């Protein structure tokens, strides 16, 4: 461990990652060319990434990454790609003085804070949006594709991707991946960390392609009329990272039941530890169902879905009168009531889709769940804290932490009666290190503290500007941004947006998304004096 932080080394590697961000920018550029749209937003951004990137790379020749440098590099990388990634949105709304005129000046992303929010929401796979109008009337297809691509890049981790393809990162790769990878600890699948990163990205890419093919297949066979090539790619790019940016204003509600059923298993896969897929593909498929976390993950989703499906089927889960000022009207409500109540398939589909979407932190909606009644909404709010598995693309606290917490609390009860008893907490038969348990407690407590403090702050700020939100709405907004879920309830519901919060609140939520994606500690630590001290 070094005594001081070598920030130059960190910045240099941030520069390398930034430089290579020009490569994925080619994709929306091609989309723009295909649809005959302006390529300027992407060309300019590519120029900026290469320029800034190579500039930062000159800071030092021989970056040496320790664990402190790792935290800094990871945290700054996410901030840097967010800032640079916001440029196409700004150019779309403002154009470039003396060179190009604005393409869609009415876009809400013309406000830099909004552009930053949307980009951070994309890269962190949150899926919370500040778009005023989600349609191709006020945005080009290229820009929307960039918005979806940010989620795909952020899903398995920009830094993991960098470790996988950039040889200069392989030495400190384990530190970097540890700082970024969701869940406690990383699992080395192969002796070389770069190969592990490649294996994870390989599985991620494979599943994405498979989903795109299946979704487009539904369209071709006439089972999903709206799922054209653009939509198939867009949803492939936003399902696997548990992102939730749909180019459709009605999210997945815009598609057929068949398309919704196809998306469910992919969301489930996205919330699964990707290391398990690697084991399955390398000849140990039983490992999937031996895995304690995977079993608890399916169990939790199964139980909550079954309860919600029951309430929806009986009709208790749906409101009967639409409140004024909602994002839906009485007609919509009557429609879903007749479709769901007393009908098994829609009741099961809607509850499973929503529970999987929230637990995995994808944030898609196959229905406007603002129209659900209070108990079902609280069920979903509760689900926002669960999260996917460690090593998945999901956010929030994660199943494995809850599992360890429940087991260690049971241990506490036992040792209260038998003070001398020594009981290790077991995860799949193996004892969990006590330090890891402490870390899990610290993380979860910090998560909840951050949740309550942030709810208070945002609620105060909303009151200050006279923005009328209920406490449930604020709580859901914080849970959805900190947990990288995306939609909350009420104004920030699945068909709503975060647009009406003040700029200050939105910047604060940018911080929440950033901190939440990197699992709090790696970001917070760089704000402590102890971190910088000798």
């Amino acid at each position: 461990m070094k005594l001081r932080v070598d920030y130059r080394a960190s910045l240099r590697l941030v520069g390398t990652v930034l430089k290579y961000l020009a490569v994925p920018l080619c994709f929306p550029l091609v989309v723009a060319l295909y649809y005959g749209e302006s390529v300027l937003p992407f060309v300019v951004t590519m120029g900026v990434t290469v320029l800034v990137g190579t500039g930062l790379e000159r800071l030092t020749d021989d970056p040496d990454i320790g664990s402190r440098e790792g935290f800094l590099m990871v945290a700054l990388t996410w901030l840097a790609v967010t800032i640079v990634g916001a440029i196409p949105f700004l150019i779309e709304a403002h154009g470039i003085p003396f060179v190009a005129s604005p393409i869609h000046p009415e876009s809400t992303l013309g406000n830099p804070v909004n552009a930053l929010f949307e980009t951070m929401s994309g890269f962190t796979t949150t899926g919370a949006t500040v778009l005023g109008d989600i349609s191709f009337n006020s945005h080009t297809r290229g820009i929307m594709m960039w918005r979806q691509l940010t989620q795909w890049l952020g899903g398995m981790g920009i830094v993991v991707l960098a470790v996988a393809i950039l040889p200069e990162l392989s030495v400190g790769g384990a530190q970097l991946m540890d700082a970024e990878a969701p869940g406690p600890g990383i699992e080395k699948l192969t002796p070389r960390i770069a190969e592990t990163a490649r294996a994870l990205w390989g599985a991620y890419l494979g599943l994405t392609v498979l989903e795109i093919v299946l979704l487009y297949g539904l369209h071709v066979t006439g089972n999903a009329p709206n799922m054209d090539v653009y939509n198939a790619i867009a949803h492939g790019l936003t399902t696997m990272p548990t992102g939730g940016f749909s180019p459709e204003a009605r999210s997945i509600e815009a598609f057929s039941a068949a398309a919704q059923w196809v998306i469910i298993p992919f969301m489930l896969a996205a919330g699964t530890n990707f290391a398990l897929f690697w084991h399955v593909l390398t000849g140990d498929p039983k490992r999937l169902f031996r895995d304690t976390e995977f079993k608890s993950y399916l169990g939790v989703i199964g139980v909550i879905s079954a309860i919600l499906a029951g309430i929806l089927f009986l009709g208790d889960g749906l409101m009967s009168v639409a409140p004024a000022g909602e994002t839906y009207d009485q007609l919509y409500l009557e429609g879903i009531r007749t479709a769901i109540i007393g009908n098994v398939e829609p009741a099961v589909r809607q509850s499973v889709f929503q529970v999987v979407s929230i637990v995995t932190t994808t944030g898609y909606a196959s229905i406007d769940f603002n129209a659900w009644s209070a108990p079902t909404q609280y069920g979903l709010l509760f689900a926002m804290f669960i999260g996917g598995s460690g090593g998945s693309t999901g956010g929030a606290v994660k199943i494995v932490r809850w599992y360890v917490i429940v087991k260690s609390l049971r241990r506490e009860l036992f040792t209260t009666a038998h003070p001398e008893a020594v009981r290790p907490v077991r995860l799949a038969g193996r004892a969990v290190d006590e330090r890891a348990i402490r870390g899990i407690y610290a993380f979860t407590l910090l998560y909840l503290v951050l949740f309550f403090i942030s709810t208070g702050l945002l609620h105060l700020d909303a009151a200050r500007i006279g923005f009328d939100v209920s406490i449930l709405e604020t709580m859901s907004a914080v849970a959805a941004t900190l947990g990288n879920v995306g939609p909350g309830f009420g104004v920030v519901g699945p068909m709503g947006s975060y647009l009406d919060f003040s700029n200050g609140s939105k910047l604060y939520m940018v911080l929440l998304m950033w901190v939440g994606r990197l699992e709090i500690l790696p970001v917070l630590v760089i704000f402590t004096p102890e971190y910088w001290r000798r």
Partner: protein
Amino acid sequence: MRVIIIGAGQVGSSIAADLDETHEVVVIDCDPERVDELNYSLDVLALHGDGTSVDTLEEADVERADMVIASTDDDETNIVACATAKAISDAFTIARVKNTEYLRTWQRSEKAFGIDFMVCTNLLAAESIVRVVGLPAARDVDPFAGGQVQMAEFEVDDESPVANQTVSEADRFDSLTFAAILRDGEVTIPRGDSVIGPGDRVVVIGSPQSVQGFASSVSPGESPGTAEEVVIVGGSEIGYHVARLLEERGFKPRLIEHDPDRARELAEMLPGTIVMESDATDVDFLEREYIGDADLLVSALDSDEKNLLVSLLAARLGVERTVAVIDTTPYVDLFEAVGVDVGVSPREVVAEEITRFTREGGAENVALIESDKAEVLEIEVDAESVLAGKPIRESVATLPEGVVIGAITRRREFITPRGDTVIEPGDHVVVFVDSCVIDDVTPNL
């Protein structure tokens, strides 16, 4: 047979003492004083040297040896010694180890390390302790014929319903044979009218069910089986294996270990055991955890004296039965006399196991009664055996006093031996043999 024993510690010396009358024994040890002492006390050739060195082994004439037994206290030395002996001779090699990892490696490929037979002290001791758990009042239990036959030694106390009954009165089980009554260290072969006195020990051989049945008729108050609550004191290797084996049999034992690190380690290795970190002589703790209510307490600490203390303390708190691990073999009788119900000596257990390889006549399995008063042997009968093809009544008449046919298994079926039962070649016979006649009898069987 020429036997080379490497290591003249307690195990090595006791094996040497066991074999010196009937075999040519060479003992190698690196302690010159012990070598000197052995040369005087036993009829063996004791050599000073390192058992792992080729020179020393050649000096012991390993090329002519039939068997090499490596029984030092150090696992690695024993393994290397056997491997070395194997490299320069054809002798049958036996290694004693403590670490069960080596045993597992060896079991995986029985050629590993150039060892023909490996005995694991700690595992054997734990196994013999666990066998006692299921049978109330049993002092010693040994399985034969792949578990089809059990030999058990019971102590009959004043309150037992069996006390003062004759053998034919006590024998209410079809497949049970009374092999011997031990009284004041004397072995008597019982007849139908022999009376079982209080304080006697009875050796029975039979099917596990009938032995179990007899166990409950000796002490009807104690219920055997998985309901039994077992406390293990001391997380030594033996304590660990006892807990592990009990877990395998569905028990949920409690294990008390003083050292925090070892307690944690044990708790990680034993998911079905409740590990407690405490001093087992802390009476407050023992009372708070109701240790006195336990049916059985196994004391497996690293000192004999502490084991005695813990056993006596436990008995005072009300534990039904105590089993103590006793390292110093001569203490076993003494401890059992002062109040430990069962004393298990790991070294004795190992000696028993090794003895089976020194027997001529193809004994498959051996159990020693009262250290060396008598032996129970399992024999696969071949055509040349005096037992083959005749009713038992006739064949026993040709054998000296002190031989009892305890049980027969034929193609893994249990057969109760009666006077007119005819033993066929290929049968497995479990025989009780008095030590005085063992050397005359075994070659004929």
